[in-house]
């Protein structure tokens, strides 16, 4: 397997509090690595570290992020700017906040293509058309500003933007939390199809096990900054080893469930 990016022994603190504790995650060409786990367990920070986008207050205690032989945590801001968006792109967890509020969303995607791809005018329109159709949005939608879009529409604009430059690595942080299941499935199937054609690697953060089932090859389960279980999807879902993983699987809501309460302690 062709390893594209490797997060090695990463440990990050905010003051005294350790939020990422010796984490090891790799992203492979043509594969989807899923990161699941507790809210606040360090999933987003792990993803941000891969792009050297950790908040200023974060203290990197240990570890490295290797991409093309370089440590992403050490290379210069100019170097990293060339990589971000083009070689590694990210769908942010809160897309509304990540979009530029005063620019029509179509123009925001266009800007990405012009900056990173130096694309010609007629190709540009064609590519935009294609991107909007991948994420199931009408082209009219592109003429709206972010605040004129629904939550799920913003997410889809983010996905289109992240796919726009044919990245080597695509990081998706809870990319479909506002999408209904049919649309979610259609878009994710297309993302996998494009991945098969272009052989890029995906780091996929989600709390939704049905999405893990749909998308993932490898799975890491996180809790309180620690990866408590790793393995191939089938193994983790059908024979979870760690108690926390089993607990999560117990808490998945099921249709026609007679339970009036979920089986958890307060």
């Amino acid at each position, binding site marked *: 397997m062709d390893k594209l990016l490797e997060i090695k022994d990463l440990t990050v603190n905010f003051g005294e509090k350790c939020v990422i504790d010796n984490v090891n995650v790799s992203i492979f060409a043509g594969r989807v690595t899923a990161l699941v*786990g507790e809210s606040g367990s360090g999933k*987003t920070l792990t993803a941000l570290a891969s792009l050297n986008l950790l908040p200023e207050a974060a203290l990197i205690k240990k570890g490295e992020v290797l991409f093309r032989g370089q440590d992403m945590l050490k290379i210069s801001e100019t170097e990293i700017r060339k990589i971000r968006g083009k070689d590694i792109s990210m769908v942010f967890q809160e897309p509304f906040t990540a979009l530029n509020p005063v620019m029509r969303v179509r123009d925001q995607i266009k800007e990405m293509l012009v900056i990173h791809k130096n694309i010609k005018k007629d190709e540009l329109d064609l590519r935009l058309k294609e991107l909007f159709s991948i994420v199931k949005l009408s082209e009219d939608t592109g*003429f709206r500003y972010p605040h004129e879009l629904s939550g799920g529409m913003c997410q889809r604009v983010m996905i289109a933007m992240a796919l726009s430059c044919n990245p080597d690595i695509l990081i998706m942080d809870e990319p479909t939390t506002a999408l209904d299941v049919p649309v979610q499935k259609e878009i994710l199937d297309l993302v996998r199809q494009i991945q098969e054609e272009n052989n890029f690697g995906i780091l996929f953060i989600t*709390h939704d096990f049905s999405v893990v089932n749909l998308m993932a090859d490898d799975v890491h389960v996180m809790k309180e900054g620690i990866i408590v279980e790793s393995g191939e999807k089938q193994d983790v879902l059908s024979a979870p080893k760690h108690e926390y993983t089993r*607990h*999560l699987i117990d*808490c998945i*809501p099921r249709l026609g469930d007679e339970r009036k309460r*979920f089986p*958890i302690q307060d």
Partner: protein
Amino acid sequence: MVEVDSIKKYFVKRNGFFTRDEKVVKAVDGVSFSIKKGETFGLAGGSGCGKSTLAKLITGILKPDEGTVSLNGAVDIVFQDPFGSLNPRMTIQEIVGEALYIRGKDKEEIEKRVRDSLRMVKLSDSNTLTKYPHQFSGGERQRIAIARALIHRPEFIVLDEPVSSLDVSIQAGILNLLKDLQQEHSITYLFISHDLRVVEFMSDVVGIMKEGSLVEVASAKDIYNSPKHEYTRHLIASIPTI
């Protein structure tokens, strides 16, 4: 408790600066329903079908073009986008306690109630109170927004995708909590989610929305056991089994 009568909200958009090409988005197109006191109305539907717009019309954040909304008592809302709805310059103590500061409660009482409210949503770190919204994870912000609405026990709460960023364990805790508070204080909920399993768990009555209209309204049991509208059947058939 809540009466929504044929409300409409259209948005008119121009496609580009120089064009006269106008497009009307019929975000909410004649919706009527009611919610009984102490009950939960679950609202589900496709992305962009008008759920958040409906939530804003019901809470008075947007004015309907046509139709009326009548409420009996205080209402609060948990927005779909928690980051955008939390003031970045306020600490968590100020954000969660805001409704109590406005009512002139004394400082100690507010701090105690803020702590209780945060503990209920599983945020009980000692230094949580003095942190700002950007210093939290996405799911933590979502829980802060819930704590903020629960603290002053409004009679009616609109919850717009309130658990969409939470892991299933914490989600389960929040859903249990919402049900317990409803039992104790007869709170009424409008619960919006694209996850039909969560909607089934929470709701007495379910409405399925498509392109601005409610295509089906029925008891939670009937919607799942004998869906009438084709779109409802489509959504139910797509529910994952894992």
